[in-house]
């Protein structure tokens, strides 16, 4: 039985790779970009789910961590000529100005710096609980953005960075999304993962069972920020441009929506909803255009999409608070059970 499941898993992985191969050669660049965004949202969603869903820390600083990762990766990978063109107001500080790193080390550096930022923020903020933690992390996220806006010689300030190499392709984004997923699964099912969940379930009991709250909260926070930084780096090098306004707290809420819809505390749920949310954000674009209903024509209102989107969010929060998956995870057993239960045997209830 276990063998059979392994085979299923291998087949599914092969199918995904095949799909990506086909997508890479037959999809247009717009569709490929959406696929890339889906994978990046998987990374971001998983990283936030570790903090908010598994450890139960209501943190809203994600956009800040992404900004650190995106800027680090962008600055490190940008060719020297592009750096000179970008920093025409104030030149980039040495030695960054003539330093070009390959993509992977730059991404990891972005993750590490983001983790360092999380450590500095977490030291005071993780002493708070619940809403207070949310407000503090939200504030810290904004502080990071303001710092980036004002560190002209390092980040080019409000001008942002352009002509960042578009290194992120389907293989990078899906490869890193897959790696993140595997690491998260291993982490969550380890003894440390159980400790995180214990903190989510009941802090007082967890502490009385010998779990050092501060240490474990910090671990979850820093690891989550590391992957947020990597996700940010992927995003910056996908879009080819970053600027401080990209990393406002609305970005945090997009990711929060992904994990709430997918189910706080479910890796499977986060992956599914990362795809649903990213694709529907694009599909719903038709709402911004004029709509002809035959008898009446609604003129195009820009932002209509966001109205619908917010309504969906409200409906999810009111009626499906558990999200798609709750805290459940995908397993072949449940899939097999579902297939057996459903359509084929209609007379099953004899």
């Amino acid at each position, binding site marked *: 039985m276990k063998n059979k499941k392994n085979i299923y898993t291998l087949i599914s992985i092969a199918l995904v790779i095949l799909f990506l191969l086909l997508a890479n050669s037959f999809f247009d660049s717009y569709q490929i970009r959406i696929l890339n965004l889906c994978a990046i949202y998987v990374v971001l969603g998983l990283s936030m789910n570790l903090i908010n869903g598994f450890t139960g820390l209501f943190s809203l600083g994600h956009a800040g961590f992404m900004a650190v990762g995106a800027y680090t990766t962008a600055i490190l990978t940008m060719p020297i000529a592009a750096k000179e063109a970008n920093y025409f107001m104030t030149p980039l500080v040495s030695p960054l100005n003539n330093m070009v790193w390959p993509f992977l080390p730059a991404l990891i550096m972005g993750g590490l710096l983001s983790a360092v930022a999380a450590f500095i923020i977490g030291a005071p903020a993780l002493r708070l609980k619940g809403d207070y933690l949310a407000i503090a992390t939200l504030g810290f996220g904004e502080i990071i953005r303001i710092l980036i806006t004002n560190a002209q010689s390092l980040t080019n300030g409000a001008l942002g960075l352009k002509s960042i190499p578009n290194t992120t392709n389907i293989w990078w984004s899906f490869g890193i999304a897959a790696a993140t997923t595997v*690491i998260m699964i*291993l*982490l969550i099912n*380890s*003894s*440390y993962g*159980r*400790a995180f*969940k*214990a903190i989510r*379930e*009941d802090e*007082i*009991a*967890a*502490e*009385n*069972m*010998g*779990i*050092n*709250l501060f240490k474990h909260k910090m*671990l979850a926070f820093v*690891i989550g920020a590391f992957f947020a930084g990597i996700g940010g780096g992927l995003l910056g090098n996908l879009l080819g441009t970053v600027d401080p306004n990209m990393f406002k707290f609305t970005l945090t809420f997009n990711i929060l929506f992904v994990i709430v819809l997918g189910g706080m505390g479910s890796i499977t749920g986060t992956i599914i909803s990362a795809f649903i949310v990213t694709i529907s954000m694009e599909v719903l674009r038709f709402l911004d255009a004029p709509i002809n209903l035959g008898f009446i024509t609604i003129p195009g209102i820009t932002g209509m999409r966001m109205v619908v989107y917010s309504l969906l969010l409200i409906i999810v929060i009111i009626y499906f608070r558990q999200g798609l998956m709750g*805290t459940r995870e995908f397993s072949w057993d449940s899939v097999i059970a579902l297939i057996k239960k459903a359509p084929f045997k209609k007379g099953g209830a004899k």
Partner: protein
Amino acid sequence: MTLLKANKITMQFGGLTAVSDFDLEIKNGEIIALIGPNGAGKTTAFNMITGVYKPTKGSIYLNDSDITGFRPDQITKKGIARTFQNIRLFKDLSVLDNVLIANHLNIKSSILEAALKLPRYKREERKMYEKSMELLKKVGLADLRDEKSSSLPYGKQRRLEIARALATEPKLLLLDEPAAGMNPKETEDLTLFIKQIRDEFDLTIFMIEHHMQVVMGISDRIYVFDYGVTIAQGTPYEIQNNQKVIEAYLGVSEDA
């Protein structure tokens, strides 16, 4: 030999003194009960011993080493485990996970070793698993290991909470009203169970309890609280005949 010693510990919340000058001495292997009317400060005393509150005054010693002001997790590592008055299981997690979590405090592998499943971690994980299963067998919950802990019947939840506390390998176990809400049959089972684990795990037990049947049946000594003050201590027999205790529970008679 003295296991736990509290020296005049006092807990004040603003102007309210919840516990004042509590002197406690527990010897190895004893079962000690703490009784008193509602709001007498019993749980506050527990919270001071387990580090949830830092005593305003006084100090606490475990095996002659000062543990006053330690954090709860540090105190658990030192060998004091507890259960809660209103059950605090990790509700969404399985019975087995609940016990496994209590093994985490002794982990030596780093988080990196754990995430990469390196050999040392695998060994530790296997040991944790075996230890937890053995414990679950001993408390009679092994068949229910994959059930969500909140789906267990009340009596079994209490039992699981005790098993979880035992998984931290305590020397001293603090039980906060273990028989609360139990029917007579369950209460009787619990009494036997407490004695059984005391002998099997070489424990010392300190409990808060209202069921006089349980208290009088198994405790070696009893402390009685009223309004945060220790009004009596002694053997069950002495306590039953103590005038102050009777007054605290039943009130003072008019013509006395």
